[in-house]
């Protein structure tokens, strides 16, 4: 039983990371109706910028993270301004491919600047653990869960109570009507990319801290976060978090039990498990657990 709870806790921490990545997808999807494949690039960039500040320039860790969030957010805005802005009104598929192109560029720009080797982020959490009723909880995991909860609360408050959040919701709901109310859709698009950069960087820092290290492959995590986003429904921030937790817990439980109990599924089955869960859920609910069904007009 202890093993089970240990796995569930690890799954929660993993799920929190997925949720942070998925929140980045959701915020852009809500505002612009586009799946952003470049999110993985932003995640990696955020981790590397934090490393640059904390290790190369000796900035205190907390400040380095804040600076990394700001820089990555700016890069997000820049990407929107230079490339995505021109694609307004183009089919969704074309815009998705643009973000894939951006991902390729970011993925190569990062090792060109920082190299292919793994770097230590130098975070204060390290590999310390706290003992809680026989369970060894990693400090880094507790921080990750806390930060994800904080980010979600921030999202909720921002969208619910700020006028900018209201403007974003209005734009997502009906672009033309929002324009007629004097909301600048351009500003909203840029803002949503900025926010995506910020949560992406947060995800990057939590992914690369502790025993893990900063290396270019962390951009792949974004691909694993797709099922989390789809599962919850593409336009629902709470859905992203719940989807992330479901995927994270399923994945660690599969990793823990499948080699002993269902060995015929092959080694490393836990890597594809999120996709299997996603396919099964989409077959039953085509718009995810909390997504809004589209209404088709002819």
């Amino acid at each position, binding site marked *: 039983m202890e093993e089970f709870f240990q796995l569930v806790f690890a799954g929660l921490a993993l799920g929190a990371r997925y949720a942070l990545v998925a929140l980045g997808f959701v915020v852009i999807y809500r505002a612009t109706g586009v799946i952003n494949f470049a999110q993985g690039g932003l995640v990696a960039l955020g981790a590397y910028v934090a490393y640059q500040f904390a290790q190369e320039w000796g900035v205190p860790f907390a400040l380095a993270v804040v600076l990394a969030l700001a820089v990555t957010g700016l890069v997000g805005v820049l990407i929107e301004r230079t490339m995505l802005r021109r694609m307004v009104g183009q089919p969704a*598929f074309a815009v*998705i491919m643009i973000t894939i192109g951006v991902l390729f560029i970011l993925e*190569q720009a990062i090792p060109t600047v920082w190299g292919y080797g793994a770097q230590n982020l130098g975070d204060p959490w390290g590999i310390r653990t706290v003992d809680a009723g026989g369970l060894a909880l990693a400090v880094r995991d507790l921080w990750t869960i806390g930060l994800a909860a904080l980010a979600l609360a921030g999202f909720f408050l921002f969208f619910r109570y700020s006028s900018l959040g209201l403007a974003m919701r209005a734009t997502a709901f009906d672009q033309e009507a929002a324009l007629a109310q004097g909301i600048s859709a351009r500003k909203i698009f840029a803002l949503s990319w900025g926010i995506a950069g910020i949560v992406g960087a947060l995800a990057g820092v939590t992914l690369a801290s502790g025993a893990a290290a900063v290396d270019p492959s962390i951009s792949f995590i974004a691909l694993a976060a797709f099922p989390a986003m789809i599962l919850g429904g593409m336009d629902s921030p709470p859905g992203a978090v719940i989807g992330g937790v479901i995927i994270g817990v399923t994945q660690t439980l599969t990793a823990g039990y499948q080699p002993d109990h269902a060995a015929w599924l092959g080694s490393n089955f836990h890597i594809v498990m999120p996709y299997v869960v*996603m396919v099964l859920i989409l077959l039953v609910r085509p718009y995810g657990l909390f997504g809004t069904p589209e209404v088709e007009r002819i």
Partner: protein
Amino acid sequence: MRLRNLGMTTRYEHELRLLRSRPAQLGALALLVLYAATPMFLSDFWLSVLAYAGISAIGAIGLNLLTGYTGQVSLGHATFIGAGAYAAGYFGGDLGLPLPLWLLLAAVAGGLLGALVGPFALRLRGNYLVIITLGLVFVGEHVFSNWDGLTGGNAGRTIEAPVSLGFVDFDSLSGYTREQSWFWLIWALVAVAALLAKNIVRSRPGRAMQAVRDRDVAAEVIGVSLARYKVGAFVISSALAAVAGGLFGAYQQFVSPTDWSLFLSIQFIAIIIVGGLGTVFGAVLGALFVGSLPRLIEEYSGSIPGVSTGSGDEGFITVFALNQAIFGLLIVGFLVFEPRGLAALWLRLKAYFKGWPFSY
């Protein structure tokens, strides 16, 4: 002046004709001559580049039928291509069946897989379909690296499929190198695939597919069966992808599961974007362009400033990174500046001369 001379269509029979004008017929003839003569004056290295491009062209023609004509985006084509390669390995390599048979069986294997995935397109559309097919790539990679008996696991397997047609053996055509004979084989198959695709798109199914692409609900209302054409497009498209995969395996003679990663799918999407969505010859142009560009960069990387060619070399970007970055820039650049791809450049040029001197 007769309207036909201006390239205008005046009769239905004319509309249905494959090569509509005298220049088109002459062009086809010129292509035929080029096809026969190319292996004579190119080096084996460039012939092998062209062979890979031809293989990609077959797969891209298939993907274009699905994405360009029917509007269903698939990021899962890497899996169909892989399935084709392993089918070629099993039927051609292990069982030793002749070329037409293993190629056909590879197509059938791919088509069956497409028939399994196709129904998803009925329930999901747009972004959700993209992600589902993305999931397919990962599940496919997992299956390929665990089905040791067929795929050799992560270590990969050799594929020694016979490539003889009657008494003509394309692996060792007497007097010609392997690259020369493979060039003839592959590009003949590209022509067959292109003709097949062209015949599909200029007849009733093609029009139905385009109606589905433009507005699937409206298409259904006017009597186009979505189940039939969405699933049908998936089947044909994945069958062509599997043929490409089978040829890839037989030509390369060795494949491993890492060959069928998401990158391959993205590469195929890039090919049809660069070439031109919704045109058959665009897929071929795109395959030639995307296939030969990395080789050109590798060849001439020494003379591009700032590029390091070896590990100890000075330079701020490696050839690999440069290739990938240019690949990304190509996708972005074409979509932003020329969304209809290389095909549009050609069509514009043609329209310009067709109406000469009234070309505006």
